[in-house]
């Protein structure tokens, strides 16, 4: 049977390299073709998993422990599908967005390709060292993308991001080294039973280091300092990729570590602590988002806040009944998907508004409701998911998380989620309200190419449809 797993990694590597050689003009076409192929491959892999459970592929025919294994379960498939689904419309968008910046575009296609290759590889990796390699590649490609437009601001943000990402993967690597020292293996499959059988104190240290590193890379409060300038300062398509996907890669890894590898040594206290940091992110991020005067910074802080919801998953799924844990776990993953789709749409919509008005301040978008109704509609639809209102993927996720919190008697997370939801409504409507005001006399709206509007609408609609068809995602998730 044809196996899509290696091709999911090879395809972006190939088109990224070709795009680098052939220049930006063909790069766009290569990216489109490559991503359509990858989407088909991811869908195929998902079908295979639904039909036959977890899949393993030995690269070059050499299985672990000698060779490298690729493995995919329901969660991997969900993440792979999300990655390709978000990236494909963004490719069309980026092509229109960068029309006047050929220089940026030269590096944009290859870097995007390497970024996607690294992410796909991360979701398919079966051992902790390979994961480290993909993390580094992912981090470097992402830093490059932040700097792709040039200029002092983006370069500074990129350097800060570089520092955070290197520190994060450094901590992770240290943890991997400690694990290897104790157990003599880096394979997830081999390590899991070993850790369950016997855990010396140093393993807890390794776990803490690996988790801390990933929290830094996920920009969990209070490690979020690098995210707003990097995501807010990058060109819109890059912001969309970073906010929607890249931080989810390190979160995916936290899920793997917490629920698979280190499941025997996780504690309710640690889970509550993670939840508390998540709550801090929800509240602090939302408050700061509300205080921003610039569109992209508002959306970037919204990401900080939305990441907080993901971390509520840990207290809701640790030390509770299996039923509650399942509901929390499903809600958390659904939130990853919903936020990915909606945040990509939101950043791209904001980018289109900025392109049309030529201004980044929130004050500058007065009149957008009349001049760019489609883009504002897109922003509002994405906002529905961000606010967690029905019928959207964000709402379905929130419903599951709230249900888990109430069923396990942890009412304080209910308060956090509800207050966070209201705060997010406040910052989303801050933008919408301004857009409904009449345009200023001096305002000069540039007409937008269609590709800056329609692909983004598709992303926002997808985040809404998720609210009606979330069951499909969950059945894929459960197929592991």
């Amino acid at each position, binding site marked *: 049977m044809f196996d899509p797993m290696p091709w999911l990694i090879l395809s972006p590597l190939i088109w990224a390299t070709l795009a680098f050689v052939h220049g930006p003009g063909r790069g766009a076409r290569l990216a489109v073709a490559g991503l359509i192929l990858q989407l088909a491959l991811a869908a195929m892999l998902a079908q295979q998993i639904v039909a036959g459970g977890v899949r393993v592929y030995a690269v070059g025919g050499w299985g672990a422990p000698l060779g490298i294994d690729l493995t995919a379960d329901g969660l991997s498939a969900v993440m792979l599908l999300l990655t390709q689904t978000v990236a494909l419309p963004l490719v069309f968008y980026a092509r229109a967005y960068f029309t006047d910046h050929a220089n940026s575009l030269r590096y944009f296609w290859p870097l995007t390709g390497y970024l996607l290759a690294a992410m796909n590889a991360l979701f398919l990796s079966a051992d902790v060292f390979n994961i480290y390699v993909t993390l580094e590649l992912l981090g470097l490609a992402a830093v490059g993308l932040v700097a792709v437009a040039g200029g002092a601001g983006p370069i500074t943000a990129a350097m800060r991001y570089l520092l955070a990402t290197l520190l994060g993967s450094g901590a992770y690597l240290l943890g991997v080294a400690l694990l290897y020292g104790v157990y003599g293996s880096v394979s997830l499959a081999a390590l899991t039973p070993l850790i369950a059988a016997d855990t010396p104190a140093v393993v807890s240290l390794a776990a803490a280091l690996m988790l801390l590193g990933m929290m830094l890379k996920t920009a969990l409060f209070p490690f979020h300092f690098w995210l707003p300038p990097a995501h807010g300062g990058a060109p819109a398509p890059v912001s969309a990729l970073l906010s929607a996907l890249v931080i989810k890669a390190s979160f995916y890894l936290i899920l793997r570590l917490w629920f698979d590898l280190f499941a025997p040594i996780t504690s309710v206290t640690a889970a509550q602590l993670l939840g508390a940091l998540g709550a801090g992110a929800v509240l602090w991020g939302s408050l700061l988002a509300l205080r921003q005067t610039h569109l992209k910074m508002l959306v970037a802080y919204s990401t900080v806040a939305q990441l907080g919801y993901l971390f509520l998953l840990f207290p809701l799924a640790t030390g509770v009944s299996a039923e509650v844990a399942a509901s929390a776990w499903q809600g958390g993953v659904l939130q990853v998907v919903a936020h990915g789709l909606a945040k990509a749409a939101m950043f791209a919509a904001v980018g289109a508004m900025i392109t049309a008005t030529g201004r980044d301040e929130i004050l500058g978008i007065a009149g957008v409701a009349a001049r760019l109704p489609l883009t504002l509609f897109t922003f509002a639809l994405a906002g529905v998911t961000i606010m967690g209102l029905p019928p959207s993927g964000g709402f379905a996720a929130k419903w599951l998380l*709230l249900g888990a919190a109430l069923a396990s008697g942890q009412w304080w997370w209910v308060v956090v989620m509800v207050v966070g939801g*209201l705060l997010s409504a406040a910052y989303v409507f801050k933008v919408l309200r301004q857009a*409904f005001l009449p345009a200023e006399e001096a305002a000069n709206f540039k007409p937008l190419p269609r590709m800056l509007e329609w692909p983004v609408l598709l992303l926002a609609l997808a985040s809404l449809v998720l609210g009606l068809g979330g069951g499909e995602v969950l059945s894929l998730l459960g197929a592991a």
Partner: protein
Amino acid sequence: MSLNETLPLLVLASSLLPGLIIFTLPEERHGLRSLFNMVGATLKLLVIVYMLRGVIHGEEYVFRHTILPGLDLVFKADALAMLFVTLSAALWFLTTLYAIGYMEGSPHRSRFFGFFSLCVTATVGVAMAGNLFTFFVFYELLTLSTYPLVVHRGNEQAMRAGQVYLLYTLGGGALLLIGTVWLYSLAGQVEFTHGGVLAALGPEYTGQLRVIFFLLIAGLGVKAALVPLHGWLPLAMVAPAPVSALLHAVAVVKAGAFGIVRVVNDVYGVEFAQSLHLLMPLTVMASVTIIWGSLRALFQDDLKRRLAYSTISQVSYITLGVSIFGPMATIGGMVHLVHQGIMKITLFFCAGIYAETLGIHKISEMDGVGRRMPWTTAAFTVGAFGMIGLPPLAGFISKWYLGLGALEAQMPWVIAVLLASSLLNAAYFLPVLYRAWFQPRTEAWPEELIPMHNGREAAWLLLVPPLVTAAATVLVGLFAASAMSPLNWVKLIAASEYLNWMP
């Protein structure tokens, strides 16, 4: 999918699809936009008439879609749903006619009619929701689709009203969400069922069920404008007149009241709610709202503001009715769902005509308007008399049954509330009528936009809807005993809530 499953979806689609299409139409395609609107509104009415016949003959119209395991989106056309759906569809049809006339020449009409249709879609979704989750989904959609209508004028006052509106409704929505999720985690899917579903839970849940009831009522009370959650309503009347008309008669306020009916009757069950001692606080809250709203209405000079406070008072009759234990009061409350709708929409239609034709916004400017606009003022008079509760108009029927119910439940003080309210209704409506009919006009109209010619006082599109609803106000009162009257329909519903009672 069978026809009986498709029909509820068709009721939704007949306003959703025209709404979505209208968004994409260019501003100047006036005719095409009106065509889509009217075709949608007519189609919705036809489908509903067909379903009404079916429901009488015992047909079941249920659509079910599983969103997540253990979480279904359910549309169910039971008798109570049909009552509200019919009201919404009929009044949407009239309001659309009125709005086409009213919005002529004003900017952003595509946006206006688009959201108008979405708002109606959300209302019929609320009406046909078969479980609490579905109800919540459409309840929130209603908030989102009405916000752009409230801020439609885009001026500072409208923006401010919009902000307050969101603050109240999203806050209320959050409480409703917590209550709903909590109930689901206790009792699984909470389907609306006659007599309620929660009585089956053991006595150890009593405390939790009381807290949940409080959360649900607080969440619903915001839209139903129960005092002290009513602050948004008087501000929201800055919206264009057709929006106010629909907001006050069917869409937002009614959705809240309808939700209270559902929660008391079909989630908790009247008898179970009574055994938990939950109904008495609700009765008190409704009574306070009735008196408070009327008192505030007395002191408003702005016509729409006076009507807005009157709505706060009148909608609480519905809550009052369902909160008094006994079939008579339930009948009075539920029939007021329809009666208040047709009376209040008449009044708002007329207020809009006064403003559009002569620039009259204040009651102090209404001297002699009856002679200049006899038809409009006649319709306004019927609506106002109905509100006061003069026999044989619609409002009298509601109050009669509410009074009977209060006696039946041995709560004579409720009669006092009803009497006081009627007196106050008279006190704030009769001076308006006196000015309109009997005070001579001494000065020019504030802003005469449409001059009188050939005896036509206002555009036909504006004039016909209030005349129709005023006629309806008379007819539903006069023929309350006939088989197809709202009263008779409501009696059938009450019979299914109180199992030992026959109408």
